[in-house]
């Protein structure tokens, strides 16, 4: 699996991980790679029926963006909250339990995650994996902290993934890196800043490629020194429906989501700096 899995961690919920993963899927597809999305453990109310099984909506959209058929293996574990403390738990698209969430039982399903990952990495050139929420949040409490730990660092270990930190606050990554152990820190290859308003201004000016590179270098130079953070890209804001909303909300139609994301791919061109991102895998 080594060198095949690119994992996107975030510094918070809703920083744009899912959107970034979808954009990467499409951009890599255009480059001629066979790409698969992946999320080991999804916690969401938005799900999509695929064949017999159930998978997270965001991963289904990402698969479409990558031009492949959605497959429950791209989302082996799925927790669907039903409110009032009840959840449904799916493994590889099949419902195995419902009732209270039992985070201590997650370890039992590790083998499934490992199997899905190895199958996908055999079938595809690149697996764009997505973490959940903040990469590590010491003051969060159960059951959220166990879920986060499994979805982020346990999965990164299982996949032997290279990690990219996705953030919308330029100061935050340095602090998050201080939470990580030496081994985990070595996995982190860079930071991608999303929703940066000033780059919106530059988009309108039209100096894309130059500005994209200049901004990434600039941020790396200014904010990177403290924590040894490397800025891979600085992306403008992309408007559209949320792929993986934080709180229960109605499901948008796949077509409309795909349309906005396709526009977004146009918009971030030159800012994404795909070659830089790909170089983290080698």
């Amino acid at each position, binding site marked *: 699996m080594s060198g095949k899995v690119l994992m996107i961690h975030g*510094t*918070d*919920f*809703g920083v744009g991980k899912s959107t970034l993963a979808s954009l990467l899927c499409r951009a890599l597809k255009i480059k001629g790679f066979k790409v698969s999305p992946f999320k080991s453990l999804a*916690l969401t109310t938005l799900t999509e029926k695929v064949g017999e099984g159930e998978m997270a909506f965001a991963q289904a959209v990402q698969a479409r963006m990558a031009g492949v058929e959605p497959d429950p293996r791209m989302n082996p574990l799925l927790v669907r*909250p039903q*409110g*009032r*403390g*009840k*959840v449904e738990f799916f493994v590889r698209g099949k419902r195995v339990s419902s009732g209270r*969430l039992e985070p201590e039982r997650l370890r039992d399903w590790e083998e499934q995650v490992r199997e899905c990952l190895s199958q996908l990495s055999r079938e595809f050139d690149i697996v764009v994996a997505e973490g959940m929420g*903040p990469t590590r*949040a*010491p*003051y*969060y*409490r159960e*059951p*959220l902290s166990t879920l986060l730990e499994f979805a982020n660092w346990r999965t990164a270990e299982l996949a032997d993934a290279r990690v990219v930190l996705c*953030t*919308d*606050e*330029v*100061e*935050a990554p*340095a*602090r*998050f890196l201080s939470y990580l152990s030496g081994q985990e820190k070595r996995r982190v290859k860079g930071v991608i800043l999303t*929703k*940066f*308003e*000033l780059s*919106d*201004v530059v988009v*309108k*000016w*039209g100096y894309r490629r130059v500005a994209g590179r200049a901004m990434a270098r*600039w941020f790396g*130079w*200014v*904010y990177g020194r*403290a924590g040894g953070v490397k800025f891979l890209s600085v992306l403008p804001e992309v408007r559209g429906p949320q792929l993986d909303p*934080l*709180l*229960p909300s109605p499901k948008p139609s796949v077509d409309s989501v795909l349309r906005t994301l396709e526009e977004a791919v146009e918009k971030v061109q030159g800012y994404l700096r795909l070659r830089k991102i790909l170089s983290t895998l080698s």
Partner: protein
Amino acid sequence: MTAKKLMVQGTFTGAGKSFLVALLCRIFREEGYKVAPFKLLNWTGVVHRDEEGREFGYSQVLQTVAAGTKPDYRTNPFTPKTLPGGKLDLLIEGRPIYRGYTFPWTLLKGWTIRRRRIWAKVKEAGKRCFEGLAAEHDIVVIEGSGPSKVLRMGFYTKMIEIANQWVAETFDAPVIIVGKCPQAVPPLLSHLKPEQRERVKGMVLNPFVAPQMLSHLTGEKEELFEKELAAGVEKEVGLKVYGVLPFFEELSKLPPLDPILWGEKPPLGPWEKIISKIAREARDHLDVEGLLKLAK
């Protein structure tokens, strides 16, 4: 100057400063004070034009509406207005001093002295406007621009420094920091000078969704998680947490309150209803008394 002052600064652009200031304006007004917002520098494409033809930031109009007073150009003395084609109009007290200022080229030569003159004018106008507002109101809620400090970015650093630190120092205002990610605060504070750091008294998290998520997952009450997480954040950041605001559905449906580029204006009528509804809900999540005590 008789009014009390309180300043809101952000961890980064889009941290929710404009919203928090509007919210505070509303809540303080409901407490019986006469409130005014103030933002020295508002770089935006969305401006309001009043009867006299003065143009200033639309987000200040939203805030004055929340405070229940009339739109006033003094709430935003300096407005670089974004125009299509990478141009700016520089407006001081609502009147243009430069039209079609093309920003990247003016950095090059011949403009150093002119830029210095512009900043001197901005500071002068800022003092004049603020004194006017302070004489007529009980509380002035000041808003910073962008992050409260930016390092080594030339023109942008200078702009942010004047809009945030110069304002806080000149008008002697206590500062609260607003942001969504508490981890961004310690690095930000470490960039401040000691006297600037002393002025920062607390922070507000906006939006912080973890309590809502946890309560949805476990079925327990939201307040329980909120207190616990706030305590954790306090330990992490070393600042008093004055509020943990949840995710407001109505707010997410509005266009951004204070965008740099041009965009839609949230209409004023519905806005007043929305902000008063949000204020009712937000009271449970904010330490209003503490904030009132903090204002000086």
